[in-house]
């Protein structure tokens, strides 16, 4: 039995501000998780409205913390440590969270740990499903798309990823191109339900190339051309055309993820894991057909398919509390000198996707 720790997590690296309380011993329990975003405003724009202002994060972060503590029925006196996202992300937002965390740590004398936002995502399958290392992780969201082999709580090997757009972004932009509302994911999926994916032929970029790297940018351009061809021919887009285009796009994304996941799994199997686990996190994991395709692939390859609930695989602070708590349990913490980092690759050993950097790891 490990000594139990109760961790306060703080996350402000993206559009949302979040705080959470997680209890960690041999298992992990989310006692409270509060996320404040701007979801209502999505529909007005072709994408999510960002919370750019550091000020707005700063205004909300303490409220989030108060609410999370109240939800857990606790005060700061019950907390054993503070975990905060210190990158990667928009620097103003990250700074707000880091400064708040440092302030609380200074005032209370609690230990503080700096957490990589992506490590939070990558460790979520352990928080929710207690999976064992090593496991293969696909992070697939609006801003990210990468395959990681999680070998330990701080050891991640990136074996591939998008070389341009992330699929979530491609869904949003497809929605914009087809005149569908935002956020694009659910709307494109709905339109695709009645569409014929074979009505249009869209490319599968990089599919013929070895490795696990992906490309989605060219797909967007191909969709644009297909749409314009229809508009030129008919003077407009019928609802059926739109559904067909949505279906063709979704199938292309699904095919790319399916094939690249197959290759990533093959690479992962070389580690000879006792139990084969594939975990997926990020908003795109909520797409029905993509999820079904990847589940079928896992079934075929005798691999467990793990998908944390959506509220824990989109941005949240529970994953940050968990990732930080694991380090605290291991006796690690940071001093007050750690900085907010706009760029912070999870795998410092990985070269830039298409070659190697003259400066080594990106900072």
């Amino acid at each position, binding site marked *: 039995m490990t000594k139990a720790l109760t961790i306060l997590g703080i996350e402000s690296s993206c559009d949302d501000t979040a705080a959470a309380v997680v209890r960690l011993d041999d298992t992990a329990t989310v006692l409270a998780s509060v996320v404040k975003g701007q979801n209502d405003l999505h529909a007005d*724009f072709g994408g999510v409205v960002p919370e750019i202002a550091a000020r707005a994060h700063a205004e909300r972060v303490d409220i989030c913390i108060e609410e999370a503590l109240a939800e857990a029925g606790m005060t700061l006196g019950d907390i054993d440590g503070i975990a905060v996202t210190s990158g990667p992300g928009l620097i103003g937002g990250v700074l707000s969270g880091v400064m708040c965390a440092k302030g609380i740590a200074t005032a209370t004398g609690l230990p503080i740990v700096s957490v990589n936002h992506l490590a939070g995502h990558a460790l979520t399958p352990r928080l929710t499903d207690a999976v064992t290392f090593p496991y293969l992780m696909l992070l697939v969201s609006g801003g990210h798309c990468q395959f990681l082999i999680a070998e330990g709580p701080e050891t991640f090997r990136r074996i591939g990823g998008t070389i341009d757009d992330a699929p979530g*972004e491609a869904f949003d932009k497809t929605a914009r191109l087809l005149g569908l509302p935002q956020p694009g994911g659910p709307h494109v999926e709905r339109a695709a339900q009645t569409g014929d994916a074979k009505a249009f032929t869209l490319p599968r970029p990089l599919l013929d190339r070895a490795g696990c790297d992906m490309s989605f940018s060219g797909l967007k351009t191909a969709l644009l051309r297909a749409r314009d061809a229809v508009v030129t021919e008919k003077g407009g887009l019928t609802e059926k055309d739109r559904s067909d285009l949505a279906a063709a796009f979704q199938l292309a994304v699904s095919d790319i993820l399916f094939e690249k996941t197959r290759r990533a799994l093959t690479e992962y199997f070389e580690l000879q894991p006792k139990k084969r686990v594939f975990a997926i996190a990020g908003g795109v994991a909520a797409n029905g057909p993509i999820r079904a395709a990847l589940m079928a692939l896992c079934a075929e390859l005798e691999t467990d398919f793990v998908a944390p609930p959506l509220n824990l695989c989109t941005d949240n602070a529970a994953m940050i509390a968990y990732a930080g708590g694991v380090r605290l349990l291991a006796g690690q913490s940071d001093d007050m000198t750690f900085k907010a980092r*706009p760029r912070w690759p999870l795998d410092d050993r990985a070269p*830039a996707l298409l070659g*190697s*950097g003259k400066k080594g790891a990106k900072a």
Partner: protein
Amino acid sequence: MTFTKGPVLLPSEEDTDALAQRIAPILRAGDVLLLEGDIGAGKTAFSRALIRARLGYEEDVPSPTFTLVQTYEDDVDIWHCDLYRLSHPDEAIELGLDEAFETAICLIEWPDRLADLAPKSALTLRFVASDPHHVTFVGPADWQTRLGAIDV
């Protein structure tokens, strides 16, 4: 005095890369490129090629759509921005763009969001995704000289 040059045809992504590679070396601190054009017109592809040409290696250049700004450290820092999600020009100041306009090389997608904040000295590149893709340059006269020196 403004000048207009183009359209320069970009039938393939290789042509976009080649154009970016020619422009990259002539850029200096304080240069702002305003990249106009619809989705799929080639703004990010051009930026990616230009950033890689500046850095001299195949850096991972993700789309800045979600992060709004991606910065690259070099002898002169490069800021790659997608302002689509901005709702007010003031937010550009919040991002620190006004300062970056002075000190960095800035590649700005969806620059209409800047309204009056767009520097007068900026070079505008209008990308169009017709068949073939093409781009038109618009900017102050000194850009004509600078681009002329590299036969653009």
